């Protein structure tokens, strides 16, 4: 599979296998991440997988000391040889995870906009959102935020022109062709259509996120009463 490489500042390089959503590109990114974690090159710091890319952070000083050339050029060469030596991607077995979501108006300030934008009723938006099995392509943006592939394009809605300065934790949103869940209270530009009572991030857990790249996810519609119950259970449960 073809790929391109380009710098992200002077301490990172992005390897991208596709400019559009592509499952194989995502698997290649996850496979390269795993490989680099097992066999890091000199100066490797960490890597961040995204839909179709892997961004590799490195310490330019350590790379420079070893190669005496442009750290970017050296890292690109190393990555190129690693990528070409990687065997065909094997698909790791994925976990199936259910996320309960309440789509009541108090949790869904943009549900009506998403419906109107796509010429649907709010009920239809909810049905289309809960129908598919989603694939977690990456965790990013903020701690524990899952980027999900598999949303029905009939509910695609552009991001807000000006991001909200605070989105409540657990909010389920749509941004373009993507859907996801906000694990923390943060600013955000996605259209909010519901909320889950689950905690998606815990800094004292290993790993710290509820979802992992590669997981399969289903959204289950719940009523406010069940939402409240799950909230209560989570508060009572030991850490």
């Amino acid at each position, binding site marked *: 599979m073809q790929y391109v490489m*380009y*710098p*992200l*500042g*002077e*301490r*990172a390089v*992005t390897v991208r296998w596709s*400019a*559009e*959503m592509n499952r194989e590109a995502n698997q290649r990114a996850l496979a390269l*991440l795993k490989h680099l974690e097992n066999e890091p090159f000199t100066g490797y*710091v*960490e*890597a*961040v*997988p*995204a*839909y179709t*890319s892997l*961004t590799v*952070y490195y310490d*330019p*000083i350590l790379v*420079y000391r070893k190669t005496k050339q*442009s*750290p*970017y050029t050296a890292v690109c060469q190393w990555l190129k040889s690693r990528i070409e030596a990687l065997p065909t991607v094997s698909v790791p077995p994925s976990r199936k995870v259910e996320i309960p979501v309440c789509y009541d108006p108090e949790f869904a300030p943009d549900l009506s906009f998403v419906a109107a934008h796509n010429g649907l009723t709010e009920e239809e938006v909810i049905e289309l959102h809960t129908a598919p099995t989603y694939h977690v392509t*990456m*965790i*990013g*943006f*903020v*701690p*524990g*935020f899952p*980027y999900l592939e598999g949303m029905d394009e009939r509910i695609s809605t*552009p*991001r807000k*022109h*000006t*991001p909200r*300065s605070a989105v409540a934790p657990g909010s389920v949103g749509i*941004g*373009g*062709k*993507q859907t996801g869940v906000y*694990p*923390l*209270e*943060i*600013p955000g*530009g996605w259209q909010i259509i519901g909320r889950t009572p689950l905690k998606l*991030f815990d*800094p*004292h857990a290993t*790993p*710290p*996120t509820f979802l992992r*790249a590669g997981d399969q996810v289903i959204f289950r519609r719940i009523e406010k009463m069940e939402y409240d119950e799950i909230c209560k259970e989570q508060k009572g449960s030991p850490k």
Partner: protein
Amino acid sequence: MTLKVIKPGLLTTVQDLGRSGYQQYGVSAGGAMDTFALRAANLLVANEPDAAALEMTLQGPVLELEKDAWIAVCGADMGAKVNEENLPLWRPVFVKAGTRLSFGAARLGCRAYLAVSGGFKVPEVLGGRGTYLRAQFGGFAGRPLMEGDRLETGDSILAPVKMDRDRPYDACRWYVSPHIFPAYGTDPIVRVVKGPEYEWFRPDSREMLLKERYRIRPESDRMGYRLDGPALECDTDAVMLSEAVTAGTIQVPPDGKPVVLMADRQTTGGYARIATVIQVDLPVLAQLKPGDSLEFQLVSREEAERLYIAYEAEMSGLKLGILTKWREMNDAG
């Protein structure tokens, strides 16, 4: 040793040089906004450069030391005082137990750093001791300091000074020379390299980014600086898939107003990235306050790398120089 918070200031947090290895879980790197000042403050008191120190923002705190300690304050000038006397910046200072360190409003710059020899003892969470405000973990209880908080510090390797006078402190005569400071200033030129979507922008937008002045908007914070200035427009219908962003990434939401991502940035983003502030100029940006303005200047990736390597060589020189000074002082008894 304990440091007691009498008044917390506007936003005082424990910070270090940030986390690594957890960005794949969406955990931002975090750490000090002005890494130069934090590293300098730590080095001055013989700490590792990434030890935990206090980051004070715009309006500093009032603190009380409960034991004698070597401290250093670097970064913004907040008119720091030990009891009633002015505290010199950018140098090691020995402070007696029971003295009060008070910081006022930032006169020059935005963020000051207080390092204590031995470092602040806070638990390590996900590989770092810095406060991650959005996610409310790390640092001191995952939050900014509050009145009445008491912070423990580690053991200092530096010998105490015998002070017979009534002075509340004794400062070393040597200091970090301003000629190695980042190009701090209120209307600085901040250098950038092209971002991955640079070519997506209209030629006049690319030109505007580099010609016009941009002003820091009030809603700027540790996560990002929102800028006021000419709106930037893309020249393409291409849709971007979310991808990694880094410290200094300048992303442009559909409203055209650029945002520079800072220490507590998100790990990935979906807005077009027109440019990236070069690493050595991030401390300059970190010292700008809302209302300050700046200009961007484009440099090549090769130039940015050369500057980074030269900067890190200077930091190594600084570390060595400070160690030498401490050895001379020890030898002199």
